[in-house]
């Protein structure tokens, strides 16, 4: 058998490389030359060497002249591009209603997404102005009381000294008090402001800018004070405040040693003035008695670590410090809570950081993105629907010589122009809307045009939306051959319709989710508001007690009661909406000696039950007729459960070494978090522990009138200090501030989402009705009734909405259940909410769509069929 030797050929892969890089107009001659040379070399030196030579040649041709593509045209495109914009503009103007729906919807979505972005930016930048922020931490304490793992920010007095002198890791440390209100007086000028008492290191640790005075020495002298700029201005006007004397609480004279700029709103630590902690310690018997006590936690300790020290390692190191210093203490573990977490990650549950505000930042971030998404979807939906009308334009342009790339550029630049208009509109909307959003927690947010991040992301959204919205006409329509389009053979593919259905479904699913979530938030708030709180906060005025009021209380009480407007007056150790005291030195028969149970303590005197409107379960209130009532105690129900007495009235327990007699049991009073169970607490008789004076106004009297009457009475007994009061029901409602804010915001977003979705639906329905106008005409002629047609045109949308409800419900249910898990006292998600929201959506959809379907169905078929 004879075989034919195949003609020797150059390596194929090398040829492929050549074909890949070589410019198309040169490939023929170069490849030809190479092959001829190869054949020549085969004869000369043999096939192997010829192949090597071929490869060498292929590589040798990798040179600019061989790679560079021939420039097809160097025509100036300027005029063409200008014409694109003209045509784009005319298209917008031709259908004004559609354009304004399209641009307006996108602008509203963008505006709200950007406002949310601004808010998130603001929240994330909280406390970021401290230069040493990454090394500053608050010392917190994990405790185990009543078998409950709690985390507190209060730590003992001697901790700061110990950390600063015996731990080389610590650079600076300061005791910091909670915000205290104090009366500051210069001459006749008297103001109540809140301030903090801090150790001298404070000003160096934190970066509150000091305008006047020396940072290092400003708080050294106990009789010094640091003011904020605006406080200094209101006390001293334009005089130089440095070195001036201020009288605090009408008792102590202190000297102004420094002025700091006003504390920015995005600082967790807020104050109008700073005093040395030593000043507070010298003037409070309580504090000076606890200078060396490791068991009494009543202040905050903050540290700045040296560079390179790990917070985790140091937390570990000091964890058991309290117990080492005082071996009677049990189950207290110190740790560092870094500054970066103060604002957003401030919640601890079971000793573990569970986030906090960050949840809301994330939530609104997601909602913002969703609203933006809905708006963008809408825009794309409407744009693609409209662009089908322009198929003929594409045909004509192609016949006139338009290349596909030119058409792509045209449609993309046109949709980009539209999104850019929306962006400009969104910017002006934000400027216009921000002032009216102040009450929703946006008071500190401003739009500055040097906010590069925001503008760039806004533009990015613009471009992305424009590109996607424009891509349908740009890529799809431009791919058809002109003769098909112009002959009318061009058939709309199924794809855009399916896509549009998916978009509508996802839009409405998001809207529905938002509405259900909003409803759930308000249900939860109402649920907590509706719970029995154990006292009556209405018509109850809480006055901050001053020293003078305390001293003159007897006369004050008599005068108030004699005024005729007041039902009862009593002093308390804390306002009804907070708890100042929680003690663990109570004991009772049968108490487990190893348990460490703390009871909240409220100290008050006669008439408290009338003032607060207590609800007694057993026993009686304190009574002036019982001489022994100074040693009486009233328990709340939770305390009774903890103590476990079967028949408590008349039995005794101990507070420290003092024996106290249980005279009554009241319903639990919700003084703290309304979403949590009430802690065990006791009401003790003590007329000396006075921080508030509670005044119950008679039911039928007018509150404003009463205030006008009691104001002078208070003034008379409190000549030097202002009269500071609040209504207990207002204070109580403030506990819902966060939830209310979230609910309102979610409500706004939900309304917005529905609004934008409906805008989209409206546009879409009008377009679909227009498309089927001939079909409707024919159907009418053949006898279809208006109702039939209406059903035909609307039913598709109803099916879509129902479908989106089915998708949204389980997802929303899952997330809202998870949100509710944050609350101890929580409502149930009820199925009827979903049903109600769902039917509401269907009704809204029908209303939106019906306008067009009814118009189309009513139109005279003669007119619609004659056009062409």
């Amino acid at each position, binding site marked *: 058998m004879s075989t034919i030797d195949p003609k020797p050929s150059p390596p194929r892969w090398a040829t492929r490389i050549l074909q890949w890089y070589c410019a198309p107009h040169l490939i023929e*001659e*170069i*490849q030809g*030359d*190479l092959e001829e040379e190869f054949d020549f070399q085969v004869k000369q030196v043999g096939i192997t060497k010829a192949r090597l030579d071929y490869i060498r040649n292929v590589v*040798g041709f990798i040179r600019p002249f061989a790679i560079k593509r021939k420039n097809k045209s160097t025509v100036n495109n300027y005029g063409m591009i200008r014409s694109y914009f003209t045509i784009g503009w005319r298209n917008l103007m031709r259908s004004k209603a559609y354009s304004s729906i399209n641009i307006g919807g996108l602008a509203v979505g963008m505006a709200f997404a950007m406002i949310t972005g601004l808010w998130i930016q603001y929240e994330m930048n909280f406390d970021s102005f401290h230069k040493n922020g990454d090394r500053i931490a608050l010392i917190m304490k994990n405790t185990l009381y009543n078998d409950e793992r709690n985390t507190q920010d209060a730590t003992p007095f001697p901790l700061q000294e110990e950390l600063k002198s015996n731990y080389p890791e610590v650079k600076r440390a300061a005791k910091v008090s909670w915000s205290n209100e104090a009366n500051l007086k210069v001459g006749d000028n008297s103001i109540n402001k809140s301030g903090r008492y801090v150790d001298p290191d404070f000003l160096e640790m934190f970066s509150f800018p000091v305008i006047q005075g020396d940072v290092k020495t400003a708080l050294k002298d106990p009789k010094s004070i640091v003011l904020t700029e605006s406080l200094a201005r209101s006390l001293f006007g334009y005089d130089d405040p440095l070195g001036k004397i201020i009288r605090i609480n009408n008792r102590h004279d202190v000297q102004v040693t420094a002025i700091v700029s006003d504390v920015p709103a995005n600082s967790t630590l807020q104050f109008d003035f700073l005093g040395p902690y030593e000043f507070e310690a010298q003037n409070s018997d309580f504090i000076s008695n606890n200078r060396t006590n490791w068991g009494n936690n009543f202040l905050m300790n903050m540290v700045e670590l040296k560079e390179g020290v790990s917070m985790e390692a140091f937390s570990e190191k000091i964890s058991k410090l309290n117990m080492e210093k005082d071996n009677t203490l049990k189950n207290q573990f110190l740790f560092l809570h870094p500054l970066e977490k103060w604002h957003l990650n401030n919640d601890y549950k079971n000793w573990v950081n569970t986030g906090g505000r960050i949840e809301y930042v994330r939530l609104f971030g997601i909602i913002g993105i969703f609203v933006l998404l809905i708006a963008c979807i809408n825009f794309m939906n409407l744009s693609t629907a409209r662009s089908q009308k322009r198929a003929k334009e594409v045909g004509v342009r192609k016949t006139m010589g338009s290349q596909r790339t030119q058409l792509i550029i045209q449609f993309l630049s046109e949709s980009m122009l539209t999104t850019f208009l929306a962006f400009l509109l969104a910017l002006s909307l934000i400027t216009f809307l921000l002032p009216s959003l102040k009450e929703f927690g946006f008071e500190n947010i401003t739009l500055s045009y040097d906010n590069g991040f925001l503008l760039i992301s806004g533009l990015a959204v613009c471009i992305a939306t424009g590109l996607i919205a424009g891509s349908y006409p740009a890529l799809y329509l431009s791919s058809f051959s002109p003769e098909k389009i112009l002959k009318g053979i061009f058939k709309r593919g199924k794809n855009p319709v399916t896509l549009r259905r998916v978009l509508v479904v996802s839009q409405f699913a998001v809207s529905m989710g938002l509405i259900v979530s909003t409803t759930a938030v308000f249900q939860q708030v109402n649920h907590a508001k509706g719970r029995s709180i154990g006292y009556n906060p209405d018509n109850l005025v809480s006055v901050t007690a001053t020293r003078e009021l305390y001293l003159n209380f007897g006369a004050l009480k008599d005068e108030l009661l004699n005024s005729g407007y007041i039902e009862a007056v009593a002093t308390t150790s804390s306002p009804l909406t907070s708890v100042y005291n929680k003690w663990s030195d109570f004991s009772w028969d049968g108490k487990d000696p190893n348990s460490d149970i703390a009871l909240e303590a409220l100290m008050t005197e006669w008439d408290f039950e009338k003032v607060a409107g207590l609800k007694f379960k057993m026993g009686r209130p304190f009574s002036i007729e019982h001489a022994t009532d100074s040693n009486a105690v009233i328990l709340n129900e939770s305390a009774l459960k903890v103590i476990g007495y079967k028949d408590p009235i008349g039995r005794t327990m101990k507070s420290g070494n003092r024996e106290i007699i249980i005279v009554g049991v009241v319903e639990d009073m919700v003084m703290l978090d309304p979403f949590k169970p009430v802690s065990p607490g006791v009401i003790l008789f003590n007329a000396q522990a006075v921080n508030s004076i509670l005044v119950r106004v008679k039911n039928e009297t007018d509150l404003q009138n009463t205030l006008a009457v009691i104001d002078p009475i208070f003034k008379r007994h409190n000549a030097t200090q202002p009269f500071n009061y609040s209504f207990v029901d207002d204070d109580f409602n403030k506990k819902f501030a966060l939830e209310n804010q979230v609910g309102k915001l979610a409500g706004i977003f939900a309304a917005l989402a529905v609004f934008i979705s409906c805008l989209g639906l409206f546009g879409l329905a009008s377009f679909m009705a227009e498309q089927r106008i001939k079909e409707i005409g024919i159907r009418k002629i053949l006898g279809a009734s208006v109702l039939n047609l209406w059903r035909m045109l609307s039913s598709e949308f109803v099916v879509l909405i129902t479908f989106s409800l089915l998708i949204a419900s389980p997802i929303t249910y899952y997330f809202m259940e998870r949100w509710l898990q944050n609350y101890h006292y929580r409502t149930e998600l009820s199925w009827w909410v979903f049903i109600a929201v769902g039917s509401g959506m269907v009704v809204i959809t029908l209303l939106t769509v019906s306008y067009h379907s009814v118009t189309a169905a009513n139109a005279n078929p003669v007119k619609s069929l004659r056009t062409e």
Partner: protein
Amino acid sequence: MKKRVYLGEFEELVLLIVAMLGEDAYGVKITHEIIEQTKRNVRLNQVHSSLHRLEDKGMITSKMGNATHERGGRRKRIFTITAFGQQTLKEMKALRLHLWALLPPSTKIIEA
């Protein structure tokens, strides 16, 4: 005034060969001719690149030839020298001769 165009030594060589080969001047042929005439080791890509530059400078023009059975049926690009190319070659030759004439007699003797 239009900027004067200069030729490199290799370009001059290629141009001369193109002029010499006439209707048969294409990549491989030119390369082989150069190797044969000068015994230099020249590669195809160098010649192609040079031809490109010459065409840019307007010394030669090119057109695609007819398809043949060689080279997998691919056409050749045939180069022809332009009047401008011829003019340039003549000027260069004249310049050389002029400069030779100006050499001192001793040098001429060595050369001879």
